[in-house]
């Protein structure tokens, strides 16, 4: 599984996280942050274009754009854009798992099958399963990120 393999290198990850948090406390504009004496290093970058040559995305894409590209090259989707499993109603014994990199995630339930009822939004936290007040489907957070991260 991609996510399991991604969690392999912890030290690099911690360093990148720190720089990401630094850039969160940013100056008024992106440009001044990039041009400052201590710009946050791009988390990932390629070799760049050769002089006199027009680059490809593989050579030049950086940051999140590069993550998406690398994931595509491996045949996986870097982002989860698919709807949650609505083929069944989640139960306390067997709740619907909600993948999350944060300790909480906003969930919208429309019942089973999908669109059976109006959408109900609720905050799903790591330590507590939640039940949809409309159809009773139970959801559980499948937390896969750092336990100490709490930014944004």
């Amino acid at each position, binding site marked *: 599984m991609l*996510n399991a393999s991604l969690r392999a*290198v912890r030290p690099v990850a911690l360093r990148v996280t720190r720089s990401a948090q630094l850039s969160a406390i940013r100056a008024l504009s992106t440009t001044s942050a990039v041009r400052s004496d201590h710009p946050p290093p791009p*988390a990932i*970058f390629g070799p760049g274009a050769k002089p006199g*040559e027009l680059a490809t995305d593989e050579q*030049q894409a950086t940051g999140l754009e590069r993550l998406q590209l690398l994931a595509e090259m491996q045949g996986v989707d870097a*982002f989860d854009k698919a709807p949650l499993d609505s083929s069944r109603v989640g139960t306390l014994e067997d709740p619907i798992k909600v993948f999350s990199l944060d300790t909480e995630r906003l969930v919208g339930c429309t019942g089973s099958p999908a669109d059976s009822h109006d959408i109900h939004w609720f905050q799903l936290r790591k330590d507590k399963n939640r039940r949809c007040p409309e159809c009773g489907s139970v959801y559980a957070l499948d937390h896969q990120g750092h336990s100490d991260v709490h930014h944004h």
Partner: protein
Amino acid sequence: MLSINNLNRSDFQYHPYHLVTPSPWPLMISISLFCFVIGAVLYMHGYPYSLVGATFRLGFINTAATMYFWLTDVTNEGTLNGDHTKEVVKGLLIGFLLFLVSELFVFVSVFWAYFHSSLVAAIEIGGIWPPLAIIALDPYGIPLLNTIVLLSSGSTVTMGHHAVLKRDRRYSIWGLLLTIILAIFFTGLQYFEYVNATFTIADSVFGSVFYCSTGLHGLHVLVGTGMLLSSFVRLVNYHFTDSHHQGLESGILYWHFVDVVWLFLYVAVYYWGGL
């Protein structure tokens, strides 16, 4: 090159969208545009230069400067920070296309005014079009040359775009440079024609609608030239890749839009309206 396997997935956001951070530029552009518009209105209503000059210039300089700072931010976010994922680029494209649709309807309204006044000419202007005693411009003179210049610039910009897609840096730079030169040549010819025209914006509805339509088009040519110029600078500075160059694509779309509007202007205002 780092492989995705060596990265911790939770160090990156789990959605592809770019949630922008606080920025001073939306507020700055609002203040600048307000100042710019007030200055323009005061100028058009003949207020003293001591009042108008400062307001108008401050508005213009602030608008231009804020545009520069804001667009530099967007450029850095996309090129240096890698915030522009495929989904973000798609959003930028759709946003620009919607903007073009709104632009299209601005021109529709101007053409509506033109046909309203010209198809059934009022008795006050002699019941004819062009109005009595108005000497319209010769459509086979500079306007025809301008048509050729703009169509040529459309082909050079296409050459530049195809060179970008084929990763030919040399020809893409030449294509864009030629387009910009032709664009400036067009603006120069329009200026020459405005200066030498026998009628002014105050000479009947013909003058008003002529300068409003061709002037609005001329402003769009200036903006399009600016977009192509910024794309040129970014191309020279290695910002674009063969598959990610949305700034350039938007500029090209805008340029073709300006091109098509000119063809309608030439046929309706210069040719049909001038004979």
